[in-house]
């Protein structure tokens, strides 16, 4: 009954509630836009970084100064059979030597990272690269041999297009020059630091480096959605420690001793989560998120003051109504509950409206091409902002908003409940 009365009052008092409703709607739209954009940027970085840094968890082998995993198949099998929430596990050969270059048409581009991937196991992950030409399917089968996937930035510098033969140069493990003619099988759109990588089949890269065909330097492990990456990495490290020598937990790149300090006579595995690889970028995004929530908190304070003042006026204006309700038998708690339910109804309807507006704003924010802004490349996909809102984030925002409004309404609602009926009825309307 109280609920019915509250909802009826909400509709009847709509003119008095309209300003608060607008404030709550605007506030919720703002926080939806902020958190959707911030989490979307973080999610975009995580997706790009996972492809670049060998999955959500990378397992890298070290022996003395060399990057090597002697038996990658054993590690892959152990991770697959572990029962952990693994989406994909695959071996990789990574070449990050400074001598690697691509040559085409009189132009050359130096490469930061060459990623030799196992097509059979990792193609599903790499198919999500934002291809502008070609695709991962071009790397399949016999025709995929000597295929290469380059970024749009590299293609533009070279003047190369899909299907072109380009010369790939690097130095082998023994320091000798080696070259191969590679066919461009795909061009992906990436202008950030993650774009200075090329993808090729790991058997091709191993051949160029004069390593055995099935050799690997890293194992890429991708986790299923919603998994806590840091805990997942620790579980993998614990799993592998049963059969291999492993480094202690690595929480950031700074934790990891430099090459010359790694005194590993026997093969030792370094298990690193994506969070550890991205610690500096994550700090930046966390700071941005904290800043945006600070603005949200300030806005909430403004809303809170507005709700408080409006409810004070509302209780004063509805004194006779309160007196009438009390006179017909409504208890104090019920009167307080009535006002709080009105506030709850208000915040729910306004938040829903604000959420819808926030989604539209997010959609609009994703339309313009931001690739002209230098720093945007890292956080955008093909120059466009992507948003990400999990049910958890939306619920958290709603709970914060509800708590703020109810807190503001608590005092006036309590005073309304304590009002003596006779005094309330005697008041001039």
């Amino acid at each position, binding site marked *: 009954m109280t609920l019915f009365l509250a909802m009826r009052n909400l509709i009847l008092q709509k003119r008095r509630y309209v300003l608060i409703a607008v404030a709550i709607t605007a506030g919720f739209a703002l926080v939806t836009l902020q958190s959707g954009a911030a989490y979307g940027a973080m999610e975009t970085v995580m997706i790009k970084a996972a492809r670049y840094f060998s999955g959500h968890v990378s397992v890298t082998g070290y022996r003395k100064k060399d990057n090597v995993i002697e038996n990658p198949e054993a590690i892959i099998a152990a991770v697959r059979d572990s029962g952990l929430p693994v989406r994909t596990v695959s071996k990789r050969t990574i070449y990050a030597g400074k001598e690697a270059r691509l040559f085409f048409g*009189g132009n050359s581009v130096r490469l930061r990272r060459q990623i030799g991937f196992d097509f059979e196991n990792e193609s599903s992950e790499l198919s999500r690269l934002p291809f502008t030409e070609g695709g991962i399917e071009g790397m399949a089968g016999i025709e995929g041999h000597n295929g290469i996937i380059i970024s749009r930035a590299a293609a533009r510098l070279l003047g190369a297009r899909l299907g072109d033969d380009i010369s790939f140069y690097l130095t*082998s493990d*023994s320091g*000798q*020059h080696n*070259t191969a003619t590679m066919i461009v099988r795909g061009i992906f759109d990436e202008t950030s630091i993650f774009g200075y990588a090329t993808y090729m089949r790991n058997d091709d890269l191993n051949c160029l480096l004069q390593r055995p065909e099935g050799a690997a330097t890293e194992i890429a492990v991708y986790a299923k959605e919603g998994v806590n990456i840091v805990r997942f990495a620790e579980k993998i490290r614990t799993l592998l420690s049963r059969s291999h020598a492993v480094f202690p937990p690595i929480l950031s790149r700074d934790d990891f001793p430099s090459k010359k300090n790694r005194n590993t006579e026997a093969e030792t595995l370094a298990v690193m989560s994506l969070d550890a690889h991205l610690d500096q970028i994550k700090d930046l995004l966390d700071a941005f998120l904290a800043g945006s929530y600070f603005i949200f908190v300030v806005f909430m304070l403004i809303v809170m003051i507005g709700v408080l003042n409006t409810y004070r006026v509302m209780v004063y204006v509805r004194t006779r109504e309160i007196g009438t309700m009390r006179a017909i038998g409504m208890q104090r708690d019920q009167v307080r509950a009535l006002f709080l339910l009105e506030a709850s109804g208000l915040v729910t309807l306004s938040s829903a409206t604000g959420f819808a507006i926030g989604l539209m704003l997010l959609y609009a924010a994703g339309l313009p091409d931001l690739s002209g802004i230098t720093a945007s490349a890292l956080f955008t996909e093909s120059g466009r902002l992507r948003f990400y809102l999990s049910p958890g984030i939306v619920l958290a925002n709603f709970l914060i908003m509800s708590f703020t409004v109810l807190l503001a309404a608590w005092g006036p609602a309590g005073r309304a409940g304590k009002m003596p009926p006779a005094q309330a009825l005697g008041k001039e309307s």
Partner: protein
Amino acid sequence: MKKYLMVVLAFFIISGAIYADTIEDYKKILRKVDENVTFKKSDLSAEYTIVKRDPGGSASTTVAAMFRRDSTDQFLILVLEPVSDKGKGYLKIGDNLWLYDPVGRSFTFTSAKERFQNSSARNSDFNRSNFSNDYSPVTGKQEKLGRFDCTVLELEAVSNKVSFPKMKMWISENDNLVRKMEDYSLSGQLMRTTAVPSYQKVGKLWVPQSLVILDHLNSKVISGKTEFEKTTITVKNPSLADIPDSVYTKEYLEKVNTK
């Protein structure tokens, strides 16, 4: 049947012996090549002008003073031009090669396999000639190259210290001087072609007067013709005058730049 097997066996033994003799001949040629351009009893200094031309593009010029002591496998190269690179230096002592940056006043360990001043030349091109120790001849044949009758040797590196794992070398028969070289990658792709059109006599030995290096990785088709990145090295004013030991030191490079 026994007679047949004996004939086949004899054939292989004789072929092997002939082949061994031939390989030994090729090794002798390589040693003579090295001897003709190695200054064991004196220092060598010269002015090098390196002109790099991009395919269909601009040219850049570097002028450097080169000091070389073959007896101890040392050299020092001091860049004189352009102004932006003046004072830069390359110092080789044994297997160690340092690059000096006059702006930062710092030495960086570099590699003989790296490009010299971003040209088609490699730092190792300024080393003393050591083909007979670094490479092993695999095959050889006779061929005419312009006006020169040449022995063409296919060489494979015996160590990974050298820049190119495979080479083909044209050596003029009358004077055992290298006239042309083709450098190949491990996969057998032609990476560079070096032509030595002329030599100059310095004392009893020889120094190239000019070299032309074509970089086959860096090429462009212009008006239907393939143009390669080309580096021309001209060697002027070679001298066998003694050079003080202090020149082949890091301190010398630092001192030259503080003057």
